[in-house]
Structure formats: structure tokens, C-alpha cells
């Protein structure tokens, strides 16, 4: 791996520690859809314990949505996301890896973007970039005193490589991280990228768009008791112990409902497998024939009496717009909404 960065943070414990408690099943969107233990972290860990290779469980490895809900509930504290990413790396698909590498190397070869003089930066994901008005409002809210810059390089290519378990060329990673070093605050839209940035830049204060916006008084003040607030699961589960308190505080202040289950794990609304994220599959899973990308959003809404859906992530917003006629509002648009 010379010349490449080991971009998968090493777990404290690996599959050998799995005791088979099944707690990961309870929160796994893939299990909820398929009712197939083989497609869950438990199934992968048990298969590995008995000598299976990554190729033997390829379908399971690729079906994982990396929502990371399984990690905070694992009593053995196995690094389940890292385990899945490591398995994806072992399943390297040459064409995909080459394509991702070429994309990252092309990005690395571009001229250096000017380093921001501001103390904070916002890294939007492609879905947020596709909504420039919302992105502008998010930036305005977060930089209320003119202190946040929009990143020229948001690392979308790196995020995709991480998702696929592909190695990130060291040169590309260095180019990406260079302007971020020394910043006081980095606000990230992509939850998987956020998890890795916390590893790569341990001294920086790295926050999700959702947490950063929901910490603002004017955004909090615009939340209503009838709202369903949809937490972006990847960032939430990456820093669960701290964020569970943050959102519990938000609940007590705003009185709104959340996409949390009884364990206070965020139910993903837009759970997508690797093939789907890469655009290879349109249905969430072709394996069981009952694939329905909207099932998770329906489950979150089931039995709830809400008047509005507030999302941290544009992807989640799109999932709810498919299944509900309720107004769906991004957190960044809330402050305006509150004033009207």
C-alpha cells in the first residue's frame, strides 16, 4: 500500500469479539428489509469467525448502507464500520478502484485552492451542493458573523472512495487536508467523511451540518412540537455518546419528535447500499425482490402525528418527499421559515 493512505481507521476489536447478541440486527436497515441475518454485521462476523473470506460474503458486504447504527449498540465495541470498509477493500473491483483513483489523482493535480483566512469551513456534500439556495442559507446561518468559508475542495471523490473501501492516494489526501489543518471548526455534510476527518484531524472541532445548525438559537427557536426532526445517521452514530445528549437537549427544548428508536439510535431514512450509491442499482436491493427505497421513511412515519418534516440531509428529505405529502424542510431553511 506504499503511496496510499490506510483510510480505514483500525477498530479496537474485530469480528472475533462478536458474541452473537444480535443487538446490531435491531437497528440494521438491511435486516429490517431482508430479515436475513447473513446480510447483517452479526452474519458477517460469524461467517468470518468460521473462516469465510470476504468473497464468500460479498453480497452482505456490499449491501451495508454504512449508516453505522450498529456501532453504538455493539456491547463488544467492535469497529463495525471499519470492518465493513476493510472487507470492501478486500473485494477490490479493479475497474471501480481504477476509476476512483483516476478521479482522485486528477483532483490532486489541480492547482492549489487559496487557503481561507477564516477560522471555519463548510464542506457540503453533492446533494447539498445541488440545492444552492439551501447551501447559501446554511453558510449564512453558520457564518452569521462572517467567519465560515465554503470549501473549494469538499472531498466528494474521497468520500466516494471511502464508501467503496478504495485506498485514497496519499497525495490526494494531503492536498485535501492541507487547507483544513489548523482551522478551528470544520462543518461537514457527509457523515462518512466526517468520521474519517475526526481521525485524520484529531485536534480540529469537526461537526456535522445538522449539529452545527441545530445548535443555533434561531434554528432551535424555529422548531415546533409537531415537527419530525430527522437526524442524519452517519454523523450521529460516529459521535453517538456526545450527540445523543445534544439531541436529547434539543428534544426537551423544542418538543419535537425524532427519527430515533427506543435505543436512541437514528433510523436511516435513505438507506442505500454500495451498488446503489455508485448508481449500479436503482432498487435498494435486488436480492429479495421486495426492495423499496421508501420503506425506511415509511417506517419512521408510521404511527406518528407530525405536521412537518425537518431534515439535516437532502437525501433524507428526498426520501420523505417520495412517501409523504407533509412539508419537508431542510434545517437551513428553518430560520427563514420561523420568521415568516
Amino acid at each position, binding site marked *: 500500500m506504499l503511496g496510499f493512505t490506510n483510510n480505514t481507521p483500525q477498530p479496537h476489536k474485530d469480528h472475533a469479539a*462478536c*458474541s452473537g447478541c444480535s443487538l446490531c440486527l*435491531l437497528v440494521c436497515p438491511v435486516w429490517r428489509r431482508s430479515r436475513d441475518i447473513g446480510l447483517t454485521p452479526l452474519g458477517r462476523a460469524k461467517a468470518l469467525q468460521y473462516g469465510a473470506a470476504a468473497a464468500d460474503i460479498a453480497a452482505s458486504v456490499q449491501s451495508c448502507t454504512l449508516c453505522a447504527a450498529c456501532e453504538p449498540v455493539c*456491547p463488544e465495541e467492535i469497529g463495525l464500520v471499519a470492518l465493513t470498509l476493510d472487507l470492501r477493500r478486500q473485494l477490490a473491483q479493479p475497474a471501480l478502484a481504477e476509476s476512483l483513483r483516476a478521479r482522485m489523482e486528477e483532483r490532486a493535480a489541480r492547482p492549489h485552492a487559496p487557503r481561507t483566512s477564516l477560522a471555519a469551513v463548510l464542506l457540503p456534500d453533492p446533494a447539498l451542493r445541488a440545492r444552492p439556495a439551501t447551501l447559501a442559507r446554511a453558510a449564512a446561518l453558520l457564518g452569521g458573523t462572517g467567519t465560515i468559508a465554503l470549501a473549494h475542495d469538499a472531498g466528494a471523490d474521497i468520500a466516494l472512495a471511502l464508501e467503496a473501501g478504495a485506498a485514497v492516494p496519499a497525495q490526494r489526501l494531503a492536498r485535501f487536508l492541507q487547507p483544513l489543518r489548523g482551522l478551528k471548526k470544520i462543518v461537514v455534510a457527509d457523515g462518512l467523511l466526517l468520521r474519517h476527518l475526526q481521525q485524520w484531524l484529531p485536534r480540529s472541532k469537526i461537526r456535522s451540518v445538522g449539529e452545527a445548525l441545530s445548535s443555533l438559537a434561531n434554528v432551535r427557536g424555529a422548531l415546533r412540537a409537531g415537527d419530525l426532526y430527522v437526524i442524519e445517521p452517519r454523523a450521529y452514530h460516529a459521535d453517538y455518546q456526545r450527540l445523543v445528549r445534544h439531541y436529547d437537549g434539543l428534544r426537551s427544548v423544542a418538543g419535537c419528535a425524532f427519527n430515533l428508536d*427506543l*435505543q436512541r439510535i437514528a433510523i436511516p431514512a435513505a438507506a442505500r447500499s454500495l451498488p446503489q450509491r455508485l448508481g449500479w442499482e436503482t432498487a435498494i436491493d435486488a436480492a429479495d425482490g421486495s426492495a423499496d427505497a421508501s420503506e425506511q421513511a415509511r417506517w419512521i412515519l408510521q404511527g406518528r402525528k407530525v405536521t412537518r418534516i425537518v431534515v439535516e440531509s437532502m437525501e433524507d428529505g428526498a426520501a420523505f418527499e417520495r412517501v409523504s405529502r407533509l412539508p419537508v424542510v431542510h434545517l437551513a431553511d428553518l430560520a427563514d421559515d420561523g420568521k415568516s
Partner: protein
Amino acid sequence: MHVTDVEPGTLGPCHVAPDALRGIKRQQTNPARWSGPNWPEFSAAVRARGIELLETTAARATFATDAGGTAYGLAHGVVIARSTGQVALLLRAAQEYRVPVTVCGGGLTTEGESVAFGGVLLDMTGMSRVLHIDAEALTVRTEAGIFWHSLAEELRRQDLDYLSAPLNLTSSVGGTLGVGGIDVNSARLGCSADQALALQVVTPTGEIVECSDTHNAELFQRVILGYGQFGVITAATLRVRRYTPLRMHYFYYASLSTAIEDLQLLDRNDASDYSGILTIMDCAVNVLVAFDSDEREAAFMADWRARLRGCGEFGFGLRTLIHYVLRPWKLGEAWYLLQRKRELFPELRRPEYMRDGTMFDRSVVFSRAVWKFWGSRQMVIPDLATSAAKFALAVERGNAVCRRYFPHYTLYLVGIKLRPEHGPHYEMSCIPPDAAGWAYGCEFEPMLDGRAYSRDYLQSFKNEIYDIGVDIGASYYRFGGMMKGYIRRVFGDALVDRHLAMKRRADPAMILNRHVIF
């Protein structure tokens, strides 16, 4: 070494060091693996009937052991239950080709009961959808492979809750109904199996039968607490209730027998909605009580609190400090207690599960703690179930065994309110035959602390606990699998033979969970 397969319903001699344990007659506990006659024909037949049969190592390995982690076996193939009709087709084929079928729900057995030693492993979690909630009648109809936690998730969306369920999120409804299920409200509401109103069952010969106390009652009686011998539960109608958060109180005792006396006092007088005892060895004995309403809590405080001999956390801490200051040679034990308290107590009071001093999700709180502080890849949890009168003696004797075998352990004690009309359900089950009004159960769980114990050592420990049951006339919650040698010793040959005869009639090829209790 060749281990011969024995006729289901009998126990063979143990071929592994038969004289290794002094005074204990060794019997074959893990059954020999079914050798697979007719497997190719069977697998072709079930596939022809449209059933997906998974034969990869990865699929089979998932079910190679249970929560106990001491019994290991591989099925020839795995079937994920998808519908009642599919299960019926599978059992018909299994009966025809004489292929054993082992049913697995949450897989939380500890003695290998849900481990397949060859044949088919039927994974019931594939059938885990809630079918209908009747909020007016306070009932729910659900597929039986559902985890209690998943059921709670659905019920809570309608402000409902189940009555009682094991303090473990990943127990399955079907598995629990088959063995009993205890909760900290069982002293008031009975065991979890008592809340079942009706079941859909696939018999070992593949018939689909609906049963209840009034309809096919004999099958209902045999399937409830029947250890999976008389059918596969595919759906269940359960009583539910309005959801309420609860307010918990803890009282600390230095004596097991005093705590048990107080627990039984509370249970007899319906003084609390929830009650139980959780200990750190026999040094910190914690009686927990909880209430669904302010009124019940106020009544307890007015009428019963003063009669309890336990003290609060501060008082107990002070007493314990004095105890260990006077016994410096026990500082290691004191350090362990302190560490345990510092780790465990915050987990039971995590703010995200509490609101205004009430606990919102008791099963989540306790289940997380169970797995975090008691769970590991290997667990042995022998237990004793007795009448109220024998309970203190059973616990004291079991505690002495724990002391001899392990430096650290936990006891979990709870009462179970019995329903007189359910007498037939209780026959040859965890409910002891001489119990009236309440039965009491105690789990003896050693903390293995990452140390390696041999299977012989663990088996000797379990045997010593179970010998107490034979001696005083008790029953056990976990009497199947590796502990099934005790069934005839506690229930006697006549009763066991009668049930075995019923089993042979219902399951001519003895295919369904064939090694669990017979």
C-alpha cells in the same frame, strides 16, 4: 473418535473422559451430529417445493453456537422462515425424509438448545412482522420470530407496550413462549408465556393449526412452555397494555435471605408493579422495585417502605466501607465492588432513557446493561426455580457453589405469579410442580472476566447447581440441551415418558428440536 448417534429420547454415555468428574455420572450432552442420510434427496425435494435452502459455510456458521457459546454444531442447511406455509412444507418434507429440524429465534439459549447438530436450522427471525394491533381490545397479532424489542418499537408508536418479556432485547416472541420468559413484573403479571391468547402453530407433521385455551386447547397447552417439541409457533396473539414509564427505587442489603424475605413480602402484598433482586456476588444485594403510577408509588411509600430492611445507596455505601475497613484482607473484593458500581450504575441511569426521574425504556436500559456487563462469547447461567418456601434455601446453597467456583458472579432473582387455570401449561416446565401462588427463579451467572474455563469446569459448576434442584425438589428454566440429563431426575420417569409418548405421536420421525429435552 466415533460418537454414536442415540435414539432421540434417550441419553447415551459420555465418551469423553467418562470418569473425569468425581461423583458425577457423565452422559452425552452434545448430541452426535446427524450423519445426513437422505440429505441430497431432502434438499432436492424442498427446493422443488420452492423453499430456499442455504448450504454455504457462511450461512451455516451464523448459527454454529448459541448465546452460551459452549455448544457448537453446524446444520447441513439453513432455511429462513418466510411464511407459515413454507414452514409447513419444510416440516412435511423433513418428516418424510427423517431430517432433523432445529428452530432458532433469538438464539439466546445457553445449553445448545437452538444449535443444529446437522439437519436443517430454521431461522424464525425471517418471520418477524407485526400483523395487527388492536388498540381497543389491547391485543397484538405478530409473527413469532419477532424480537420483543421490535415488537415494542411498533407498539410504542401507538402508545402501547407488551405485558412482560425477558429483559433482553433480542429474545424472540416464539422462543420465549416456548420456555416461559421472566421480567421484573412477572411477580405481578406472570411469565411472558402467560400473556399468549392464541397461537398459530405448524405441527411436526406440517399441519397448520390455530390454538388457544378454548380451541385445540391440548396443543396450546403442549406448545406453551413446551420447549419446541410439539410445533413451530409461527404467529401469536398477545395481550398488551397502555404504555407507562416507570419510577425505579433500589434498596441495598448485605444478606440474601433478608432481601428474599422482603421481596416475597412485597410480592404477596402486591406492593409494587415491578420487583426483583440483582446482586454483585452476595456482597451487594439490590432489591429493585418500580411503579407504573404515582399513586402506586405513594401507596408503597406509605405502607411498605418502612417495613423493608434494605437501605439506600449512601447508607449501604457507609456500611460497606466499615465492613471492609475491618476486613482489610478482603480489599480485592471491595475494589471489585467499587469498580462494578462505578461502571454499572451510570448505565442504569443514562439520561437519554430517563425523563423527570422516570425510566422510559426499561427493557432497553436493562438489556444494554445485560450485554455490556454480563455478556460475552461464553456464558453459563444455571438456575433454580422453586416454590416460595424453598427459595431462600435454594439461593443460599447455589450462592455457596458460586463462591467456590468463581471470584465474581451475579444473581438475578424474580418471582413469577402463577395462573391456576394454566396448570396444564406448567407441566414439565420451569414452573416447579409444588409451587402455588408464586414460583421463584434465581439465575447464577459467573463473570468469566475473559478467563478461559474448560467445558468440564463449567459443566461441573452447572451440575452442582442443578444437583441442589434435585435435592430439594425444584425445576429449572434452562433444563434442555446440555442439562437435559436432569429432566428425568427432577420430574421422574413416569411424567417424562408420558410426554415422550406424546412427542412420538405428534412427531413420528422425531425431527423437530429432537435433542432439546428428550
